[in-house]
């Protein structure tokens, strides 16, 4: 049984569908039961999708 900590550590792999079938199932089962982890994974997925469309104007300018 995965702990919340394990889920947080594997969250990116879960979002990217890079976990094995068994690993994916373990995370899903945990998420069904744990509202906090569900929110954490949802937020990380949201950030990942937002990064994809972050306006290109531009991270380079932050360090002159």
């Amino acid at each position, binding site marked *: 049984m995965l702990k919340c900590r394990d889920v947080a550590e594997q969250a*990116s792999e879960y979002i990217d569908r890079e976990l094995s079938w068994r690993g994916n199932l373990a995370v899903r089962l945990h998420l069904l039961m744990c509202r906090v982890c569900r929110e954490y994974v949802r937020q*990380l997925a949201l950030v990942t999708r*937002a990064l*994809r469309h972050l*306006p290109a104007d531009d*991270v*380079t300018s*932050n*360090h002159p």
Partner: protein
Amino acid sequence: MARQASVLGTALSSDHNSSAEALLLDRLRAGDELAFAELVKQLQGSLLRLARTFVSDAGAAEEVVQDTWMGVVKGLPAFEGRSSLKTWIFRILVNRARTRGARDGRMVNFSMLEDREGGESFLEARFSKDGRWAHPPSMWEEQDPEDILLRRELVTVMREAIAMLPPAQRAVVTLRDMEGVDPTEVCNILAISETNQRVLLHRARTQVRRALEVHMKKA
């Protein structure tokens, strides 16, 4: 708020078997200046962003990018299409940026063992010894990327968080999440292992999420 699409943009997907890319390559190899100009326009921002990870200032990044385009022109006849055109160009850039960075005394270390900054220490503090949340994340109202991207201050927070990342994390998140390059190609471009790439990406995303969380709590 999606990036501007163009015919060329479609051709420059990670799918290097696409017929659109083949067509683009034909035009480039035939010396079609318009195709080359469009290619530059399409990738210039991405290349600058990636170069900035390796070198110390914007001027040096611009020089590396110019140097990269010269390398592209020179290398096109020999390009075999084993990777996508975009990946190939990114790889030229990374090689040149690394050389330039080393010359300027700025070495970017891609070993995750050397790159301990980031998500891990933050996660440590969030869990109790039994692996449960000791400090759970606050709930967010934001549902869609637009809920973040349409708020200027949140975009700024994300940009600043990315700029503050250790270079290796920044390079990986730039390629994977911002440029949409697939994991195998990212490993290829940066010459890092899959495990390393995965850890760096997760740490980077964790940091950006964390920055947003801190900002939202303050607001």
